[in-house]
């Protein structure tokens, strides 16, 4: 993996850029415009797209990825990665099913325990990564298999589905006639908290510092290991919440819930402009990335485009989103060099 950071115009202090150009030049603004364009064209082309029903289904669909993308953004900003999120959700779902079926505990207590299970999974990742100094990619490939395996051990190939109907209907209930799911209120709260933490606290700024240079961050006194450990715990807890939500929404606890979701989460985060090398990314961009993939998927599905084409689109979006900045940087560099060549004969004459 060759590590070059695409240069951004906004990073160069000598470049006089107006506020509008600065906002317009940002990748998340571009992405937001693409999202608006997709929504606008889908509304005009596809019958029945611009309805509250669409809004409701679309939002319910993106909740799991949106939630998981939040801690994932912070983790990738620090230069690490968590591939075990979907397996953690699967294990949580299995535990929830078995506890509800066999323990006789109240459902709310079960839910709290499940979020704790998620947090413990995250703590296992965090400990292995920070205490032993292992690569998060390797560790979470291991726990991806381990947690999914434990889900199978816990619940076998059975399903539990007799959850209280108030709760399962709560998972998809809409606010009045707006079509917006009630659960979005909670999700927005989570997104808001993560946005504030990343962009408006000193802790958030230390995360960017770690991503740029872990050594430098250590030298200025940032407790890199502690921060990373807690990020993984939070990632586990949020994955646990997704496991609970997934179970209630489909009214089914099983070992294979949320299988493969980690790839969708990472695709959305990277599409949202977070640099895989760490040190760069915004919550707004990631939220836009999640919505863009969700909207595109839903619109194409409504237009009866086969499921298979959808995965090509997702893949191409991901590749394009990472290749484009490099391509732009390459073109800029070429133009800068050619300008230098053109100007170079003038230099000795002047001096």
């Amino acid at each position, binding site marked *: *993996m*060759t*590590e*070059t950071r695409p240069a951004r115009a906004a990073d160069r202090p000598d470049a006089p850029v107006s506020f509008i150009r600065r906002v317009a030049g940002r990748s998340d603004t571009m992405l937001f415009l693409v999202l608006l364009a997709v929504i606008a064209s889908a509304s005009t082309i596809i019958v029945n797209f611009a309805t509250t029903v669409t809004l409701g289904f679309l939002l319910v669909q993106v909740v799991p990825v949106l939630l998981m993308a939040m801690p994932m953004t912070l983790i990738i900003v620090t230069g690490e*990665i968590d591939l075990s999120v979907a397996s953690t959700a699967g294990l949580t779902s299995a535990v929830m099913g078995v506890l509800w079926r066999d323990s006789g505990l109240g459902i709310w207590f079960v839910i709290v325990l499940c979020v704790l299970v998620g947090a413990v999974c995250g703590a296992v990742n965090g400990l*292995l990564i920070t205490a*032993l*100094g*292992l*690569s998060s*990619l*390797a*560790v979470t*490939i*291991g*726990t*991806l*298999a*381990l*947690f*999914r*395996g*434990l889900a*199978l*051990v816990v619940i*076998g*190939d059975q399903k539990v589905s007799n959850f209280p109907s108030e709760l399962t209907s709560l998972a998809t209930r809409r606010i009045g006639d707006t079509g917006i799911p009630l659960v979005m209120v909670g999700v927005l709260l989570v997104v808001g908290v993560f946005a504030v933490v990343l962009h408006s606290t000193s802790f958030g700024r230390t995360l960017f510092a770690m991503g740029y240079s872990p050594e430098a961050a250590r030298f200025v006194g940032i407790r890199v290991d502690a921060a990373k450990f807690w990020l993984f715990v939070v990632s586990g807890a949020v994955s646990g919440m997704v496991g609970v939500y997934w179970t209630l929404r489909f009214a089914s606890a099983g*070992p294979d819930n949320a299988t*493969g979701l980690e*790839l969708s989460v*990472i*695709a959305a985060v*990277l599409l949202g402009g977070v640099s*895989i*090398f760490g040190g760069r990314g915004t919550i707004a961009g990631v939220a836009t990335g999640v919505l863009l993939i969700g909207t595109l998927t839903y619109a194409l599905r409504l237009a009866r485009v*086969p*499921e*298979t*084409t*959808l*995965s*090509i*689109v*997702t*893949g*191409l*979006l*991901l*590749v394009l989103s*990472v*290749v484009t900045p*490099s*391509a732009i940087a390459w073109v800029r560099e070429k133009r800068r060099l050619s300008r230098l060549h053109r100007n170079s004969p003038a230099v000795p004459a002047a001096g």
Partner: protein
Amino acid sequence: MSTVTTHQTPDAPVHPDHPHSSPTRRLASLLRARELPVAVALALLVLGTWLINDKFLSAQSVKDLMLNATIMVILAAGQAIVLITRNVDLSVGAIVGIVAFGTGALFEAAPGIPIAAVFVVGMVAGAALGALNGLLVTVARVPALVITLGTLYAYRGVLSSWAGSKQYFSGNNPRAFGQLSVDTVLRVPIITVIAALVVVVVAVYLAYRPAGRDLYAIGSDPEAAALFGIRLQARVLAAFAACGALTGLAGVLYASRYNSVGALTGSGLELDIVAAAVVGGVAISGGVGTVAGAAIGAVLLSTITSSLTATRVDKFWQQAIVGILILAAIVIDRVTAIRRSNKLRVSGPR
């Protein structure tokens, strides 16, 4: 290969086959080999299972063990080439699917086609898909994890739209093609012989050819390798193409070995393969490990499944055990690395 540069890579790992002056040193380097723990684990697993259930080493059972391991071994060997250069190819599961389905389609379209030609077509197709990954990685300078995650989706989507709900069954293939997975040479299935030959050729190439050593240099320190004059992009591109070609070979063998191939063939395989390589001592951070180790890792993972069945352990434990093995492999690797660096009186890890 193209340019033969004579140089040595300073931080290449100790290879068990390296010529040493005395037998004791050779023994010492063998004991330090990264493949040793996984080979011992495999031996213990087979021995333990056999003690519990003596049918585990019956002729038929051993043949099944070899057949089950074959495809994983080839895939792990290919993945190891890419991992050594500090890259990863997550799209291999989709490539297996495309080539396996394509093999079925090819036999239907041209019934009289020689089997050797099918192998060539499969490997060339795999190499092309792998090279596309490599091209994107080297040209865009983006981590392979991201690019191959994207092409995993894209290739899988291409396969699904191509295959739809269609499946090709082994009955439609020429009999001789299916027999590759049935006939044996000295009790070893033919496709297993092919896999073993592949591992030997790739292992020797990586261990002794300058171009192979370059891959280790690139994985250890890309900047240093570039400064040294190694053509980084060409080598990485070649590594991806080689991985793709081996994956294509595995895809053709998949069509020979299994009853049906369709849109879902090979899905989810990518993580198992990376896991096999990591368990076999190939470091995900590049520059370390051997193809032989990855192959043993693949045999270990595929044997665990059969061994759980043979010992009547709850089959649900299989995946959890795979997870524990991966974690154990990387923890052991880390601990020995720390010990070694302490011994060298370097001021601790990093």
